[in-house]
């Protein structure tokens, strides 16, 4: 076995994992705030990226103006979602809320394409997606500088959000809301406001993910599918943990790439579609709440 190739795969995997984590964080935010699995996160990623390039195309704005404009759009979207979808659904079973987010996903996908068309676009960030020359020259290992920067951005986001949850009273209130909407309302937690803020934040996180993924893969409908890549990350890390998202991302990214390269050829390849899920599943058998998820209380 070629050891430098092994490392190349490993590092590539870890960095892809960070990209997954970027999307997974958005899920975690919403899950923590409402106990809801937000299926529309992928659609929001798509919406954000498409809005950004759409603004640049239609109004000829530069990227640096388009980004703030997109932020505004995402915040409005978040607030609107709270007002129209979530507020009437307070205290409904989680499954109903989950379904509502599926409906939301459709709506957002349609809206995005109605506004900006179904064309695919390129999105150029001022970071080039080329191998780091230093590593390539000295170790013959390929690491894209784009990925490294994405990893840094992701790291910052994780730290900020983790602190927000751990250290502030809002963080505590969010956990309360996820446990019991009714009781949270009863103690005076302004559920609606918190949700609105959180969805707006999730929108911004989606925007970051959308810009990075959009620059990587082009801005197109398929951005909605990266949610599927983020899911195993989420289950492995635990739905409720921001650091879990990143750790889960690293594990999933690395093992999926290693599996595809080393196991794939033995079984006909193309296993990346299910391998992360199976891995996460096996892991759950040992820890049903994921790595850092909150323990599920079952008691009578």
């Amino acid at each position: 076995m070629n050891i430098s190739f092994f490392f190349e795969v490993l590092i590539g995997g870890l960095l892809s994992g960070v990209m997954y984590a970027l999307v997974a964080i958005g899920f975690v935010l919403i899950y923590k705030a409402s106990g809801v699995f937000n299926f529309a996160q992928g659609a929001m990623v798509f919406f954000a990226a498409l809005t950004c390039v759409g603004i640049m195309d239609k109004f000829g704005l530069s990227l640096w103006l388009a980004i703030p404009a997109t932020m505004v759009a995402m915040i409005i979207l978040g607030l609107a979602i709270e007002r129209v979808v979530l507020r009437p659904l307070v205290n409904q079973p989680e499954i109903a809320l989950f379904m509502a987010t599926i409906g939301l996903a459709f709506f957002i996908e349609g809206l995005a394409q109605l506004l900006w068309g179904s064309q695919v676009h390129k999105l150029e960030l001022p970071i080039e997606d080329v191998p780091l020359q230093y590593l390539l020259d000295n170790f013959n290992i390929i690491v894209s500088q784009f990925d490294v920067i994405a990893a840094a951005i992701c790291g910052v986001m994780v730290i900020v959000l983790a602190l927000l949850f751990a250290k502030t009273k809002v963080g505590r209130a969010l956990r309360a809301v996820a446990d019991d909407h009714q009781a949270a309302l009863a103690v005076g937690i302004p559920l609606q406001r918190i949700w609105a803020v959180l969805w707006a934040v999730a929108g911004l996180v989606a925007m970051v993910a959308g810009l990075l993924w959009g620059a990587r893969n082009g801005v197109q409908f398929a951005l909605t599918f990266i949610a599927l890549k983020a899911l195993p990350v989420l289950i492995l890390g635990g739905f409720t943990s921001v650091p879990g998202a990143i750790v889960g991302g690293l594990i999933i990214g690395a093992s999926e790439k290693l599996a595809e390269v080393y196991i794939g050829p033995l079984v006909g390849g193309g296993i990346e579609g299910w391998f992360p899920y199976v891995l996460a599943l096996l892991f759950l058998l040992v820890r049903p709440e994921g790595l850092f998820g909150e323990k599920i209380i079952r008691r009578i």
Partner: protein
Amino acid sequence: MTTLHAVPSIQPAPQPYLSVNNIEVIYDHVILVLKGVSLQVPQGKIVALLGANGAGKSTTLKTISTLLRGERGDVTKGEVQFKGERIDQLTPNELVKRGLSQVMEGRHCFGHLTIEENLLTGAYTRSLSRAELREALDKVYHYFPRLKERRASQAGYTSGGEQQMCAIGRALMAKPSMILLDEPSMGIAPQIVDEIFGIVKDLNTKENVSFLLAEQNTMVALRYADFGYILENGRVVMEGAADELANNEDVKEFYLGMSGAGRKSFRDMKFYRRRKRWLA
């Protein structure tokens, strides 16, 4: 129970703190639960809301605190006023800020949070300094020493009674001026029940907190309350000063379990009002 009829009502203090006027509530579009309930709580008083299972006590309290919306219940008639302001359209958060807190029936602690975190969420609407928070916590711990012992456990893993204390303590953390208490004594050991009512009386006299108290333990409730309403099948069937109610023959018989000769033994129930036997 057709023997119960409203006794001539005695109007409580003229300026009610909380007043519920002729509300009608429907669950799920079809189940009519409250059929025109009116009641008043004067400032600084303890009012007990009594009645059999399913009479609509909890529903009344949830209507006041606007938590009904989350349970597919609709208020189809009537209005609720607190401090002279209509509150039916406010959010619970705004109510808590105005000083109206509810302790829900059936505990409803945040299972994944520790007891202390549960209590802290209670203070969400108040912006307190660390020291003030500490003080508020200590006060609750003073009332419920058991909570102090268990402060670091996740509420989901504490005993039923501990959760009940936690729920009450959590409401106290908001420093309300009016508390809706739904069955505070449920699942609580007798001497703690006394303590809880002691606390109620304490807050009432020292801090002028008003209470609306839904309670099954009629004996205790009437001992501490100033005024009482009896609800049956979604209607107020009787109301009056607490001591009057306590001396009413019907109330004695049906709510206090006393017959002419004093308290009946529960063992005698075996022969009392036996309607049917179990078919083998």
